[in-house]
């Protein structure tokens, strides 16, 4: 079977549906990054926030026998880490990259420790898929949207809501002002640091949703470091999308589509080493970022604490 033949036989709708699923945690990280960084706080700790949420989601969902309770707990855990990151970055004016790195290391350490100490044998209850027997059978749309994880739906809604919030509401206007020229916001009577805290917390909540995807949708159990750098890929998507929700979301597909395609090719027996396959998103991240970083314009006050 030659490649052209395979390419003709691939179900591209199915492929896109798979890419959308794979993009969900990455997009949550990207959206989280957008809120934090638009307000001027670098958030390199999204990865760690996702990881701790994945763990807490798993553990609490098992204990409470409820995925919903697990989800809330996971988001809360990620927000606690986000609050700490905010405290370091805003109040104590630590270098924000260092603070984010600390968050990542802490999350990796504590979840790894708890995993070893408490184990993870039981399966967590899954969050439901959004599935509708009738809508599901609509061609294309049915496969893309109506048999998909709940959190993917949430993610799509958040993409739209985030766009409206950032560009059409007073909250968004203030957030952007605080991230661009905090002094101007301050002289206009806007509490700069409070805006920053709240946006960092939002960013934690979104990362928490992303982390939940791993344990409540994908595998129903926890393994150490299971977020495997997807928070960082989310940051790349955020940069690629110029700190704007819809372009950042589209950028996540740029990273996940080729992987989904490679998976299909492999299924059809095209000899692709799986090692290459699993490296693909990371490789693409590097390549795209190298091409785009110089053209992107981060918020002007990004990484600078506000001192009166």
């Amino acid at each position, binding site marked *: 079977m030659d490649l052209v033949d395979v390419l003709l036989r691939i179900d591209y709708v199915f492929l896109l549906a798979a890419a959308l699923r794979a993009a969900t945690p990455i997009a949550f990280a990207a959206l989280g990054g957008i809120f934090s960084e638009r307000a001027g706080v670098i958030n390199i700790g999204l990865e760690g926030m996702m990881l701790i949420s994945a763990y807490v989601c798993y553990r609490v969902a098992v204990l409470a026998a409820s995925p919903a309770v697990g989800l809330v707990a996971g988001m809360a855990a990620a927000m606690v880490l986000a609050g700490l990151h905010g405290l370091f970055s805003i109040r104590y004016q630590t270098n924000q990259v260092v603070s984010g790195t600390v968050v990542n290391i802490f999350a990796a350490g504590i979840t790894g420790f708890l995993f070893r100490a408490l184990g993870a044998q039981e399966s967590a209850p899954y969050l439901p898929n959004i599935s509708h027997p009738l809508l599901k059978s609509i061609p294309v749309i049915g496969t893309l949207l109506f048999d998909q994880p709940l959190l993917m739906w949430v993610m799509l809604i958040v993409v739209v809501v985030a766009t*409206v919030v950032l560009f*059409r*509401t*007073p909250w*968004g*206007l*203030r957030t*952007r*002002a605080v991230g*661009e*020229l905090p*002094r*101007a*916001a*301050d*002289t*206009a*009577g*806007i509490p700069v640091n409070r805006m920053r805290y709240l946006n960092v917390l939002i960013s934690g909540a979104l990362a928490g949703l992303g982390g939940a995807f791993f344990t409540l949708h994908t595998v129903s159990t926890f393994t150490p470091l299971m977020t495997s750098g997807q928070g960082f890929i989310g940051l790349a998507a955020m940069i690629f999308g110029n700190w704007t929700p819809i372009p950042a979301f589209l950028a996540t597909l740029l990273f996940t589509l080729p992987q989904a395609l490679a998976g299909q090719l492999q299924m059809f027996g095209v000899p692709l080493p799986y090692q290459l396959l699993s490296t693909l998103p990371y490789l693409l991240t590097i390549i795209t970022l190298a091409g785009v970083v110089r053209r992107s314009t981060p918020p*002007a006050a990004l990484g600078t604490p506000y001192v*009166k």
Partner: protein
Amino acid sequence: MTRPDVVLEMRGITKRFPGVLANDHINLDLRKGEVHALLGENGAGKSTLMNILYGLYQPDAGEIWLDGRRVTIHSPRDAIALGIGMVHQHFMLVPTLTVTENIILGLETRRGLLLDEATPQQRIRQISRDFGLEIDPEAYVKDLPVGVQQRVEIVKALYRNARVLVLDEPTAVLTPLEVESLFSTLRALVKRGVSVIFISHKLKEVKAIADRITVLRQGRVVGSTTPAEAGEAQLASMMVGRPVILKVDKSPAQPGPVVLSVRDVKAMSDRRAMALQGVSFDVRAGEIVGIAGVEGNGQTELVEVITGLRQPLAGQVLLCGQPLPAWSPRAAIDRGMSHIPEDRYKYGIVAAYSLAINLVLSVFHRPPFSRNGLLQRRAILSNAERLVEEFDIRAPHAEVPIGKLSGGNQQKAVVAREFSRPMKLLVAAQPTRGVDVGSIEFIHKRIVQARDAGAAVLLVSAELDEIMALSDRILVMFGGRIVGERDGRTARREDIGLLMMGKV
């Protein structure tokens, strides 16, 4: 107890910062519909006083009375609510937002959950018409020239119903024509009952616009007067505390051979725009060539190319007929170029290093300051002592971190370092920015002395007065080109002002 026409009164305002008494029992009253100028040098306490009025600082003592009522102002929000508006020296406008968004920021109107921009835009247009402040509410601030940005700031204050408008050094960034238009705006404002506090250190402007003048020095009010009562020289000596010679004393230039030759230089700015579109000129030994122009028309890039800080795209820089290797400040230094950079903190000094080290920054690698790869502390210190004496740098001792000194003394240190080497060419960019009047006088005198000793001097300044006072020849830059040349003795301000606007 206040007179009815007094809108604002500040009584006994005192503010202490660690080691400095920034405001020492300052009294100030502002009448309805007047322009009240607050005149003083950098560090005299003008900005501190206004930041207290605007709620950015809290005073240690003193009272603020508005319309006969005592008020306390804890934050800009309080100040805005009381009808106090402020146009800061560095505009408080977010470049990536539109004019409307900037104006309504913090005071947004909503339609449901969403932002309503249509209603505020109507009001902005109304204010625009009423006061003759032409602005486009939908333009992005980053696309507007500074003069227009300042108008946006004024409209922003009026949109917040400001009755008292504070302008902090509003003319620092404007061309002479823009200054004229600002002044007519201010006159329109006071006619409609707005009261204006005009902060400045420029005597000419204060005399032109103010109804009353209050002079501050070292945190105290040294006197109040009116433009009719006090001449420029008198105001200057009030500011400085001693008689000041405002006119630079210099004899006609005796130009010698060409020292610096700039040939068709093209260069990009940091933002990758063409900043220099082919610039050529010569500077001869024994003459001062001044480059006038509104900032951002390529002067920065030109100086950087000449001094080896920026790689040109095309063209050549010749020093005494020899091409200078591009992008090598050390080659330029070694061949007799001295440079007073425009951004002192970025290129002039290392703020955390001692005064003594800063005084040898360009020659520390050569004897006597360095031998066998080791710095010679004694030589560096004795060099510092000599220069501190000669250039009148006021510092507690030579090993104090230079960042702790005042702007004027830092700048004198830069001048001292650059003048302590044999000098064929002096490139002086904004040499008196952020420097007190006393130091300005001193630096100007040294620049003229360097010329008389046979150095070629290239002076770049955004202060037209400085260019007019020092230059033997004036070149005007606009849009990355030299658009005109005038003789320094016969040049007229208005003429140069037009050239600076690109109106040839």
